[in-house]
């Protein structure tokens, strides 16, 4: 941010250091006219010849693409139809597919009459997230709220007591499954990643070697093979008769994979903490864990928020790879909904629907991380 040069006497400079007093020093107004649309356009869209060319090109692209898209998605779309023939007759999007199949896409093979249970579970989960977003609520009771929410969600999904019929995890699918994979993945992988990142910087050679070995091993393998190994190879090592639930195997694979990547994001944060912070903590006599938890991690994690959230978002979408071990996550149900022959031509609509849901969650995470960064930034400056 460059400001127009203002000459100041030493007195004024000193006064600014102490407490800025309004009106004490008169600053020149910036030369650009404010508040005028034309002024803004001139400054931002047409400030130079290359800028003007880019502006025109973008405008042309919008003019070419947007009207047909609106035409297809809204104007000529079929919103409701029991018979796919109506869709085939129309030019526009066939949202009737969503109308007909949304329950399968959202909840997969979960017993049809029990769909209210995953719906309620997802709603409770989203509410808990919404509540957790407010820094004012970061109190011990929030942990209690989460334990209760997750307990109720598990109860709703599984059933088997309180008159709810038992639904095995093999039948779970769609959005709840995707959210379970992502949420459990994040919640379990995050602490593991912190331990791995600390281990990688440890002074104990054995701890360091283990952490580096684990991180590099996992990072060298695609998630799809980690999932495949978790699904096919793990049972080979287990004694006869012992089976590990398919969902659990997928979760273990996702957690290990995400932890390895997150660990590198956290390590980046740790590395940016100046040596003086460690030394000051040491000189005060803090133990390793006191120093790490009270001084280093709060600063390192704040710095690492962007890459950490980036990792969260990418793993949220990567959960769709569980299709290779036969789990029906949201993307798989969107695809499976099309196996009904008359609806088969309308795959774009089905994928758009699933894509919109993925986008909504990912966009939310991205925006929230921005909010958090700004808020923590402000926190360190406020008096």
């Amino acid at each position, binding site marked *: 941010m460059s400001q127009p040069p203002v000459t100041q006497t030493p007195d004024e400079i000193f006064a600014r250091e102490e407490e800025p007093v309004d009106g004490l020093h008169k600053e020149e107004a910036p030369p650009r006219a404010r508040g005028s649309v034309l002024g803004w356009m001139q400054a931002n869209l047409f400030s130079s010849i290359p800028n003007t060319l880019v502006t025109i090109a973008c405008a042309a692209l919008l003019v070419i693409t947007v009207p047909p898209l609106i035409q297809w998605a809204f104007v000529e779309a079929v919103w409701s139809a029991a018979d796919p023939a109506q869709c085939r007759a129309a030019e526009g999007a066939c949202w009737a597919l969503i109308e007909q199949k949304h329950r399968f896409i959202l909840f997969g093979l979960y017993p049809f009459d029990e769909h209210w249970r995953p719906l309620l579970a997802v709603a409770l989960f989203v509410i808990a997230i919404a509540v957790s977003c407010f820094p004012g609520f970061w109190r011990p009771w929030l942990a209690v709220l989460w334990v209760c929410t997750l307990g109720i969600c598990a109860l709703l999904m599984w059933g088997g007591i309180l008159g709810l019929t038992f639904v095995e995890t093999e039948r779970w699918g769609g959005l709840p499954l995707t959210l379970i994979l992502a949420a459990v993945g994040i919640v379990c992988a995050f602490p593991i990643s912190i331990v791995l990142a600390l281990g990688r910087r440890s002074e104990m050679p054995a701890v360091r070697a283990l952490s580096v070995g684990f991180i590099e091993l996992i990072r060298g393998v695609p998630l799809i093979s980690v999932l495949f190994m978790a699904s096919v190879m793990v049972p080979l090592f287990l004694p006869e008769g012992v089976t590990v639930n398919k969902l659990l195997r997928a979760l273990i694979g996702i957690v290990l994979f995400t932890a390895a990547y997150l660990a590198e994001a956290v390590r980046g944060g740790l590395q940016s903490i*100046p040596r*003086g912070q460690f030394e*000051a*903590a040491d000189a005060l006599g*803090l133990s390793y864990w006191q120093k790490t938890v009270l001084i280093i991690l709060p600063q390192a994690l704040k710095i690492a928020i962007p890459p950490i959230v980036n990792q969260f978002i990418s793993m949220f979408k990567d959960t769709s790879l569980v299709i290779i071990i036969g789990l029906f996550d949201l993307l798989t149900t969107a695809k499976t909904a099309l196996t009904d022959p008359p609806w088969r031509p309308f795959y774009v609509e089905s994928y758009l629907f699933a894509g919109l849901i993925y986008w909504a969650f990912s966009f939310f995470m991205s925006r929230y991380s921005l909010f958090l960064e700004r808020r923590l930034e402000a926190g*360190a400056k406020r008096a």
Partner: protein
Amino acid sequence: MSEGSKPETASAITLEHVHKWYGSFHVLNDISLTVRRGERVVICGPSGSGKSTLIRCVNGLERHEKGRLIVNATELTPDVRSVERVRRDVGMVFQSFNLFPHLTVLENLVLAPVWVKKMPKAEAQRIALEYLGRVHIPEQANKYPGQLSGGQQQRVAIARALCMQPQIMLFDEPTSALDPEMIKEVLDVMVELAEGGMTMIVVTHEMGFARTVANTMVFMDGGTIVEMAPPETFFTAPNSERTRKFLSQILAH
């Protein structure tokens, strides 16, 4: 060994033939130095002469590799407990302040007393506010370090070390990172601390301060102690040519 039962030895810090190497670089070469209780030692010397390394060895931030180092009747050994023991009695102030930027001034001050000494929070806060008064900035308790001037930050750093109620204070060029107009406010606090009888080792090139406060002046060069004398002799009749040259250089400024 409990707090009170420590044998009352006359010397607070004893270094006997201390050596340290960085790889093949001999950074501390046969250092012997005794600091009595209540004594103020000022160390000066050209950059890279090993001054920081020396005082960082005293609280175990760096480990010496040969010789003996005894602080407050505890010998620093490879055993980490000896380091923990020593750090309870020794406070340190750094050139770059090293306040914790994510904590307020008051939180910076109470952190170690609460977590290391297990002091009740209310008592730690009372002591913290008292020391903030002693360094003349009681009104800054709830600000973050980033909102303070360099001189204020360094005074907070001094208060933070004092909150652990150390018997020995180490200062590593405490005013070198400060703008000239802020140096005095920090030195004033250090003078007051010296008048209160604190045992201090101060690495500094502020010779005016050294003259007022030091009992013993030490000149280091190339990892060795070249000259050690009371300030009167040190400034007026140094033995070594190197000391004389160094003094004329920094006093010329």
